[in-house]
């Protein structure tokens, strides 16, 4: 290591340790018996799996964590598939095709990204009530389908794909749809994976809308169920169970992150979609 780099390395080490402290402390005490948490200690002195057993069987307040994880998994699969099916063709039309009104419509779609989600939530609740969908997974899934971020990333990617292959295919008599389906979609695979991974993250972690539209433990998603557990006034007694539930339900996303960090980070760059 270059001598100039030593101070930089040390500062980073201190900051990185600070940054993992909240999760590290959460994970450590999720393995502690509940009697451990009122002692003055930074690391528990006794260890147990019992909190995780409670998470799997009876987390308290009538919440079933396995049920919440199943709900979140179903919602995630439905939203990722739905988002990709809607976003890919639309982004292609915005980025690659010419049609009257295109730029204006794209501008309208983009502007809504600036709108606070809580504004939409008020009337979405009304809409779901009219459709009889309150407190169902369908009500959680539907409003998450038109993801504007996905449109944005995919459109940029389609825009910078070279013209040559498209022209060659047209010479061979390919139709518009064949060019899209057989040439453009396969070329856009990196951007499609990026949008898929980001959509999965969004879906699993989304809090506001599932909080408002679900109210029975049977239909809660993971973040709602975990926050419902922690809202108990007697929560401090069960806090080790809540810590275990928090860590256990985060594992799928932590694993996704460890394998897909590249896609997540690339997708968040302002130049996402440009290779």
């Amino acid at each position, binding site marked *: 290591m270059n001598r100039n*780099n030593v101070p*930089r390395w040390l500062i*980073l*080490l201190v*900051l*990185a340790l600070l*940054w993992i*402290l909240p*999760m590290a*402390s*959460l994970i450590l005490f999720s393995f502690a018996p509940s009697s451990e948490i*009122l*002692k*003055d*200690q*930074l690391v528990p002195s006794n260890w147990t799996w019992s909190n995780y057993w409670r998470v799997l069987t009876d987390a308290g307040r009538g919440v079933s964590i396995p049920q919440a994880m199943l709900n979140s998994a179903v919602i995630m699969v439905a939203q990722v598939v739905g988002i990709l099916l*809607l976003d890919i*063709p*639309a982004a292609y039309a915005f980025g690659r*095709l010419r*049609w009257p009104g*295109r730029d204006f*419509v794209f501008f309208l*779609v983009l502007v*809504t990204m*600036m*709108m*606070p*989600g*809580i*504004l*939409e939530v*008020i*009337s979405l*609740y*009304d*809409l779901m009530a009219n459709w009889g969908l309150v407190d169902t997974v369908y009500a959680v899934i*539907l409003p998450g*389908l038109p993801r504007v971020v996905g*449109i944005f990333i995919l459109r940029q990617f389609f825009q910078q794909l070279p013209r040559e292959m498209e022209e060659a295919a047209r010479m061979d008599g390919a139709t*518009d749809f064949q060019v*899209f389906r057989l040439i453009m979609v396969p070329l856009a695979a990196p951007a499609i994976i990026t949008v898929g991974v980001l959509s999965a*993250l969004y879906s*699993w972690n989304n*809090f506001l809308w599932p909080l408002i539209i679900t109210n029975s433990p049977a239909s809660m998603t*993971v*973040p709602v169920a*975990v*926050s419902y557990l*922690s809202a108990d006034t007697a929560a401090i007694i069960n*806090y080790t169970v809540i*810590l275990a539930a928090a860590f256990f339900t*985060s594992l799928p*996303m*932590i694993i*996704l*992150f460890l394998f897909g*960090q590249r896609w997540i980070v690339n997708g*968040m*760059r302002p130049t996402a979609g440009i290779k």
Partner: protein
Amino acid sequence: MSQLRARLFPYLLVGPYLAVFAVFIGYPIVRAIYISFHDWGIFGPNGFVGLGNYASLFADARFWSSLLTTTQFALIFVPMIMVVSVVLAVLLHRTLPGIGLFRTAFFLPLVVNVAVASIAFKWLFEPQAGTINQVLRLLRLPDQTWLAEPGWALIAIALIALWGSVGFMVIILLAGLENIPDDLYEAAELDGSTPIQNFFFITLPLLKPIMLIVMVLSLIQAFQVFGEVLIMTQGGPFGSTEVLTMLLYEEGFRNFAIGRAAAIGVIITIIIAALSLVQFRFFRQR
């Protein structure tokens, strides 16, 4: 025939998306504005009131106090995340032994949802057994009750938001740093410039457009902060963390004063739009 098909093709691709967009994003926004002009309760509209909801909010001390709290939160959060994310981005920009692990430490919170982050911090801030107070006691410094203290609770919430979002801002800033040509630094070093001088005279000025984006994004985030408040403090202690979104939630989903809630939503939107525009205007000109 085939010409007609060619002309219809873009609409066939974009149509399904736009239909879903219109129902679940476009319509709810327009309808929220419509609702805000009505006396709207749990069973629907009780009549048009014009700007009545807005007038009653402007006459309500609780509205002004939550607007003030939100502004305070933004004034704590935005400078904090700007400084920390710029420092981190500069530290993480060039390669070092273990740089991948360092980046992972700051990016990992991006996949942790707000409920889990709030639970982790509630544990850290726990007055008796929480890590922060234990460390303070070890250092013989006075401990605090953090979330139960009006002066500290908002700062604690800003810290959770910082912990969760700094990675996103760092990713954006790193992309900006990559666009600064290396020869600038090499030339400066030949002239005897120190790393600190490089930072202030090369990095910061050239990073300004990206920092503007980070500032606008974090300001938008500050005015929308919600989950952390709901889980950590429910707006307390003594209303000291009751931000606008929290007031909206209370009015709309607990008191069922839906017209008022919609009006608060419209006001938040207008504030965000106005602040973003002002920032772009003000900083672009310089």
